[in-house]
């Protein structure tokens, strides 16, 4: 059952990645050329999913949209992991009051959900894919700090770390050689789940017009456009939503499956 979860997740993620990769070399129609086809076509041939209000093939836009989703996910999770993991290890190392202060700061950061931070940054620096990625990335840092610290604490208490310390191994070397490999699976799980959240956040921001710019196809913005034409052309609102849900479900399932696969002890916990 749990193994099935992982496989379904991997299949969905592979499908989304494949869509993004394929879109670099081939799309049925031009995904950005306004007026290249008849407007607001229903699904059929040659436009399998129909066309939008600008006469652009929806299937082509869905394919290219996968790129935007993955792009934001990779950068946002990358920022969060690059900052959060070292801080998490540091927090495990600090004396009690230092760790306490750091984790309290992490708690405060939790009060800024990704979307709110992104809206705030968009208001100041202007809405763009970069603003959205950075905001989502920063807002995800606390999750990585917590997960890494929790893992690092148990590693630091282990005998082999004690032995390494006794042998005079410097702290940075212990962090890289012993702590990092032993918390890698936790970070992997967190990355997968955070990736799913990043895709959801990007979609919401683009829907609000605060993420990916109009010229670049993105699933969230497609839904925003589709809502305008909901009365006459409801199917338009179906495809981008399905794409988002599939991608998010995929990464969530991979995260869950990975957690159980790598660490059976964690089974049944959240």
């Amino acid at each position, binding site marked *: 059952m749990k193994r099935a979860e992982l496989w379904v997740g991997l299949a969905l993620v592979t499908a989304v990645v494949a869509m993004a990769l394929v879109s670099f070399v081939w799309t049925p129609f031009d995904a950005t050329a306004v007026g290249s086809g008849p407007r607001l076509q229903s699904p059929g041939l040659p436009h399998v999913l129909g066309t939008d209000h600008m006469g652009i093939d929806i299937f082509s836009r869905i394919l290219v949209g996968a790129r935007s989703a993955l792009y934001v996910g990779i950068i946002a999770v990358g920022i969060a992991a690059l900052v959060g993991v070292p801080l998490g290890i540091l927090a495990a190392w600090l004396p009690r009051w230092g760790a306490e202060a750091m984790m309290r700061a992490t*708690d405060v950061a939790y*009060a800024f959900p990704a979307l709110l931070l992104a809206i705030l940054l968009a208001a100041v620096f202007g809405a763009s894919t970069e603003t959205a990625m950075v905001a989502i990335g920063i807002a995800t840092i606390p999750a990585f700090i917590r997960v890494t610290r929790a893992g690092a604490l148990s590693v630091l208490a282990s005998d082999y770390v004690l032995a390494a310390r006794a042998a005079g191994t410097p702290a940075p070397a212990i962090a890289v050689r012993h702590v990092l490999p032993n918390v890698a699976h936790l970070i992997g799980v967190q990355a997968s789940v955070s990736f799913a959240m990043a895709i959801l956040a990007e979609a919401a921001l683009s829907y609000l017009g605060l993420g990916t710019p109009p010229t670049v196809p993105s699933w969230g913005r497609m839904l925003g456009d589709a809502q305008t034409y909901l009365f006459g052309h409801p199917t338009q609102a179906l495809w981008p939503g399905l794409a988002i849900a599939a991608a998010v479900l995929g990464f969530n399932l991979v995260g869950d499956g990975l957690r159980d696969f790598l660490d059976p002890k964690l089974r049944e916990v959240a």
Partner: protein
Amino acid sequence: MFRQLLGRLGIFLLSLVAASFAIFVITQALPGDVAAVILGHGATPEQLAAKRAELGTDRPFLVQYLEWVTAMLGGDFGRSWFSHLPVTTLMAPRLGVTGSLVSGGLLLAVLIALPLGAVAALRRRQWPGLLTSATAQVGMAIPAFWAGIILVFVFGVLLRWLPPNGYVPLGRDPGRWASHLVLPVVTLGVIQAAVLVRYVRSAFLEVLAEDYYRTARSIGWTKWRALSRHGIRNASLSLVTVLGLQLASVIVGAIVIERVFVLPGLGSLLLDAVATNDLVVVRGITMVLVFAVLLINAAVDISYVLIDPRLRAREAS
């Protein structure tokens, strides 16, 4: 216990200072001169200087921050750069909209997630549990605004049972107020419930592994009896925490949902202010939202101490 409560209160105040400072730093980081942004390209140096003095941007950073905080403590959130109305005047009529949406959504989410989470935990190896977990997993993946759009189409456009968007104040017409809120609340509540079900499930699973649960079962109590007698009360501790954490995402979710259903709440005001670069309004609303989140978190922390006798005992010993 008193000392503990005082400690939590201190943490709350510190968090508030940290959060407000962060918001101030970000909104003050605007590249370039705010006065120039407001007045546009044709402004003379005298006009710019006057505007800077009016906005207070010609003074040191910390002084500006302290002035901002002191003013807020007195209920003054500043004036919109564009409409020149006080931010509080702009926010006041919208608090009720967002408040109804958030509280309705959270309540619905709990009402859905509690029984489903219990089923998912108790029947975790049978089809009702598996089905519930799978549904929750799928629900978590659905963007709330997409669910909202679909609901608008089905109930607002196709069936015409409910208004697809808009808002009527409670005072004007309670019936129409409720009918306009049904779809937004359902959207927010159902999607949030999907996230919550997982936490409820694991909270109940923890209880199932406890000795007192095993004892209750071994003296012949049914699963449901053991769980309703012991489970809910014990699980409620972790649930309260989760609810507090979830509140942040409910509030943020409400911003998007307000846009989907064209509700005149704080979220729409925030997005409008972002569109016009009205940073005073953006800053004010963000502060209110973050304040609400931190306040609830503090309340959760404090209620935790009050509910759990073990936490109190630790202090006494």
